[in-house]
């Protein structure tokens, strides 16, 4: 397992199949080394704000990107997004919503809360691989986060 202070991608995903497919896509582009997976909204918040099982983590060690599903157990994705964006320590962390929902109101709400990108998971695996690869490359390699 990766050092929790070295995490570059935080993947918030409750569906193990989607998690596996996502990780496979990232691996194909060799960017799956520093990925940490949490499986519900509450755990995501614990990780991000270094609480619960993640107290040893430093909040300031921000991941380069958070891939966030919306439909999550315990605390839903929009709520997680809202907490991230309303805290100064975490508000600058890019969050990409990666979800099955094509609902207009989800898209609008996410952007209102300050999401960096909203991606609908394609059913077509080829397109899925393509999408994940592109966003991994973009956020980890091309994007320049603030100091």
């Amino acid at each position, binding site marked *: 397992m990766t050092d929790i202070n070295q995490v570059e991608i935080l993947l918030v995903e409750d569906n193990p*199949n989607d998690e596996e497919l996502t990780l496979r896509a990232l691996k194909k582009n060799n960017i799956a080394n520093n990925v940490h997976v949490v499986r519900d909204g509450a755990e995501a918040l614990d990780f991000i704000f270094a609480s619960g099982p993640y107290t040893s983590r430093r909040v300031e060690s921000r991941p380069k990107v958070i891939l966030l599903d919306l439909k999550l157990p315990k605390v839903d994705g929009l709520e997680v997004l809202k907490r991230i964006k309303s805290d100064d320590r975490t508000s600058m962390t890019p969050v990409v919503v990666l979800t*099955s*929902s*094509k*609902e207009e109101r989800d898209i609008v709400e996410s952007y209102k809360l300050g999401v960096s990108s909203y991606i609908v*998971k394609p*059913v077509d*695996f080829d397109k899925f691989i393509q999408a994940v690869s592109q966003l991994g490359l973009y956020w980890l390699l091309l994007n320049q986060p603030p100091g």
Partner: protein
Amino acid sequence: MIAPRVVAILNTFSKTASLVVIVIGMLVLAGWVADVETLKAVLPGYEPMKVNTSIGFIFGGLSLWLLLSRSGNRTARIVAGILAFFVVVIGSLTLLEYLTWREFGIDNLIFADPDADMSGGFAGRMSPLSAVNFTILGAALLILITRPGKEPYSGVLALVAAFASLLSVLGYIYGVAAFYTFYTYSSVALNTAIASIVLALGILFVRPERGIMSVITMDTLGGMMARRVLPWAILLPFFFGWLRLKGQELGYYDTGIGLSLFAVSTMVLFTLLIWFSARSLNGSDIERKQAENEVHLLNQGLERRVVERTHELQNAINELGREVGERHKAEDSLKVSLEELSRKNRMETIINAITGSVHGSVDLREVLSNAVKSIKENMPGVDFIGVFMIEDKNAVLMADSGYPEDVYEKIKVIPYPKGLTWKTVEEGKTMYCPDAENDTTIGQAGRALGTKSYISMPIRYDEKTVGVININSRTADAFDKEELSLLETVAIQVEAAVHNARIVEALRATEKENRSLNEELERRLEELTAVNKELEAFSYSVSHDLRAPLRAIDGFSRILLEDYSGMLDEEGHRLFSVIRSNTLNMGQLIDDLLAFSRLGRQDVVPLEVNISEMARQVFQELQPHDSVKTPKFTLNHLPTAFGDRSMIRQVLTNLISNAIKFTRDRGAEAAIEITGHSNGRENIYHITDNGIGFDMAYVDKLFGVFQRLHSQNEFEGTGVGLALVKRIVVRHGGRVWAEGKVGEGASFYFTLPKDEGGLS
């Protein structure tokens, strides 16, 4: 007829006489007191007036004075009477002394007569003549005082006394002692004689308008004659007598000649006197007669004028009578027209009250009550009035003017087919019976009311009798034609009220129904909202959860192909591709279904849409990358529409993609054309292609959900696209339809609103 001036003069004379007599008496009395001879006897050597005589004069004078000036005073009259009585007493006692030869001691009662022997008779005693005079005058005074109306007696007595005294005076003047001296008795003093005459005349002239004096004081020829002649009748003989006496004494003639001369001269003078008097009287009489004649003429004229005037007056009265008659007639006719007017007024009041009530209220019972009240108040013949409304088989009393309790109980509900009311209902026309006593229709209740005439009038509504107005009168033939027609009008108004009431009833029922419908609608809306929410949750769930497994199926079968491709033959690869294509189809189906269901909930955001530009963009996005397969696309100028941009884009997308799909077998000949035009408030657009077309027999199925006319092998698709097009167009208030022919092509038409107003 009395000459008032003469009366006044005589009255003044009487009053003066009384005072003169008193003064004489007082002077004499004073003479006695002071012993002055002159005062007692006037001339020296003459017989003096006795004390009693002077007292008699004072009393008599006082009595007369009181009688004249204080006659209204009772005490004065009593005093006057007492004084007169004393005068009588003095006279009569003295007379009694002479007759009885006795001395009563009254003669020298106050003063002793020093001349006791001078008269040779009785010292201090008045002469018998004076005694008689006092008795007579006192009696005359008493009569005047106590017996009003007996003036003739007092007058005669006074005259007697006056003439007797005149005789004494004549004796003194003619120098004949015998006239004032009787034998040896004391003679009458001169002043006594004068005072007696004065007192007698005074008494005579009291009330000169009555008694014997009235002949003299009357304002007639006789009175006038008496007043003229009488003084001469006294003075002339007196004067000629004196002349004759003096002539004889002087020896001019003897007694015979003297008497003859006296007689002749008296005759001549009287004849002259009477002649002149008669002449003067004749003149007066002629004047009087002329005056009388004039008066008569005047009277005649007056009478004539009176007759004329009376005649005129009579005419005037007749005229007036005629006028009064006419006026009475006019008044009568006015009264008749006033009555008529007030009748009309009352009728109008009834109509107004009822009309007002009908327009002012929809409560039938209230309208009927007002009508009943107004008719009862304003139509004199109406004693009872009741309005019945028919409810099923009962006539129900709705309003009445107050039937007696027992009658009310009988008629408040009249069951079919009893009595007059139901007869009116069945016949449907007004019945008027002027003579109810000989009528067989009227029932017991009507008789109990004492009905002499009645009206029963139907209230009609919708060509049926719905009620009856019954009017009873205790007077026979109480209603005339006019009143009946008024009541007909009332019935029509009541019909209007019934109409109103029915409409209101119907309205209320409708309102109630509407309310319950509304409630139902609201309930349904709530249900619908709940269902909609569920549906939303459902579609959200579908969106998330249905796609994830599909992605897993596709993803893992792909991984299998990648990682284990060496272990699969060609058939294995084919089978995996079937899995994958089905997975993708299902993904597409889920997307389309979500879009379709979302459309029902999504609000239309209407804006102006440039259809031409939008169609061009859509075609560019959809055209195949292989230029050989690109159909010929003709875009004519399309009118601008009004609607939701994203929805309209969906319509164009679906229709254009269909056109491309179904023309792809045409190769280079494939052609798509879009045209459009305005038609009223809407625009009609159509997309025509020369693709494979369709059989018009299935045109109804074209726009149904999941309806497809081609197999999946021929043309892919989910069967949702056209259903979605229809739904969007319909939501914009438009229509959609299609024409086609197998192998020749198809045309899809849809309409959109031209402007905001066209959007329903």
